[in-house]
């Protein structure tokens, strides 16, 4: 009995970890390619969730597949927003900053996160919002699992496979990884750096929005959600391994599972702290992160 309960908590943790993984991969890709730390990434997740909530109510259908189908238009919209942010906010400051992008990035993206948060609170919603779905449960080996969560896990897995294929096999994906490894080299072989940076910002924002869709489906989200969430995502990126996408995935699952385990065994108040304790522990033992190599800028 007790073991079954622990297994159920484990499944919940894997789902949570999968959501973290999608959002963190987006952030990691953007940082790797543009060197622009996007503190508004968590707010993009919130916007993705908000769009899902609004569109779901607008469509009015209660069918289970509707929010999943909404992923496609939402991802496309957020791709556009990401490219827009890159062109309007990031590129002008890159020209003026002459190299060191960290400080302008913090100012701009923190400012953007504040603006989007207040716009949402003022003009759209100021409370928690979510789509509470319940499709019943199935029993697998005595484990009672919610069907909607299983579907969500499947969709996350699918997204991860598509993303891996994209980054490993397509020209664009290879170009993105190449830029994050060696910028001058990619320019020398004729890759258009500007286009790749815009495209990556778009992909990163889409991934954030997709994570937001899943969060709205399985739990709730609030307008203030962005900054705490981005803190968790950067923690995952650092502890997984600097610049390693596999590390980001493993780190996300580790954090998701440990959070739900701690929430179950010690108390829900402690589960938000787990990620940070793991981070400090890993920095003591292995400063480059679980999957990081000594060279920091590698995928």
């Amino acid at each position: 009995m007790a073991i079954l309960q622990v297994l159920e908590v484990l499944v919940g943790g894997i789902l949570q970890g999968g959501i973290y993984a999608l959002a963190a991969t987006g952030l990691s890709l953007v940082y790797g390619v543009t060197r622009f730390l996007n503190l508004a990434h968590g707010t993009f997740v919130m916007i993705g969730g908000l769009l899902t909530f609004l569109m779901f109510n607008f469509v009015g259908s209660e069918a289970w597949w509707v929010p999943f189908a909404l992923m496609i238009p939402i991802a496309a919209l957020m791709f556009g927003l990401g490219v827009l942010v890159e062109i309007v906010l990031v590129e002008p400051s890159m020209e003026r900053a002459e190299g060191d992008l960290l400080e302008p990035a913090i100012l701009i993206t923190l400012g953007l996160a504040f603006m989007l948060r207040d716009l949402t609170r003022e003009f759209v919603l100021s409370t928690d919002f979510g789509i509470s779905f319940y499709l019943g449960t199935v029993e697998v080996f005595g484990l009672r699992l919610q069907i909607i969560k299983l579907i969500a896990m499947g969709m996350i897995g699918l997204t991860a496979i598509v993303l891996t294929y994209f980054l490993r096999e397509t020209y664009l994906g290879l170009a993105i990884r190449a830029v994050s490894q060696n910028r001058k080299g990619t320019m020398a072989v004729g890759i258009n750096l500007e286009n790749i940076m815009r495209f990556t910002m778009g992909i990163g924002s889409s991934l954030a929005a997709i994570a937001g869709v899943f969060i709205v489906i399985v739990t709730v989200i609030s307008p203030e959600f962005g900054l705490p969430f981005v803190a968790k995502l950067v923690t995952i990126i650092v502890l997984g391994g600097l610049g390693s996408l596999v590390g980001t995935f493993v780190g996300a699952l580790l954090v998701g599972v440990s959070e739900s385990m701690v929430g179950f065994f010690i108390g829900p108040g402690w589960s938000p702290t787990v990620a940070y304790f793991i981070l400090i522990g890993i920095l003591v033992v292995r400063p480059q992160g679980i999957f990081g190599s000594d060279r920091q800028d590698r995928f």
Partner: protein
Amino acid sequence: MDRRTAVAIGLLAIVVAALIPLGIRSYLLREGINLLVVASLAVSFDFLRRVGLVNLGHTTFFGVGAYVTAILIVRLGFHPLLAIALGLVGVVVYSVVIGIPLLRLSGGYFTMASLALVLLVNRLAFNLKDLTGALRGIQLDNTIGVLESYYLFLGVLVLIILVHYYVGKTKYGVGFASIKHDENVARSFGVRVQRYKLYAFVMNGILSGFVGTLYVLYLGSIVPDSVLGLGITFLPATASLFGGPGTFLGPLIGALVLGFIDSLLATYVGGFTLFLYGFVLVLVGIFTPKGFVNAFIERFTWMPSIGTIKAPIDED
């Protein structure tokens, strides 16, 4: 402008600041105290930027200092002065314990991990109910009056500026600047890079922790949001970045301008403040990525000698 003129202007500024309370009402005086606190934090934030690191978890020092002091006074009945001293010890312990693992990261990754500190300490303040009282917080019996607090925090600000200025003149200041310029070159010339970074981190911690220990005596009560909430967390950091690195002038003017905008918005606009505040940050980030004050100094050539009040090695 030579050194003597700069000192004269500084003294004049202190005298003007000291005369301000005579002419304004007490609720405005509270805004003034907040400005002084933000300015002190912003200048002490600049310490770690001397080694080229941006620490977004900077206000956790402030929060730890405030909490340790309040806990010692209320829960254990310590004398306030002893509690302040032990609060500083607590901040030093905290910054060494956190600093050693965190400083193994560099550049953007350090900044990312430092952001995690905010959430960690904030959560701890909620979770350690027996010590911190969680949302109900801690109430102190006797506090410092508003007028006394104003002069106290003015003194603290001047002290922090002096420390900031004179540390830049010592071998440590030179070491910090050389690490920022090029870490590997600094190491090859015998600067103990990791140790110096830790010194900068702990100095950062002591200064803002000190402000925190006094701030709790002024406030008279402490809840997680008053020392670790969203507003106080990012205001000093953004003010310091807004002003620009290198001198204490950038963070100081940045804090005064941004803090003033912030309290104006809070008074006259109400609910929509964070949007406008964010808008200012975005504009500054786009148009003057190296800081507002530095851009100003570059623009007006009659001011350049202020730029010499910095570490002997030019940062860029």
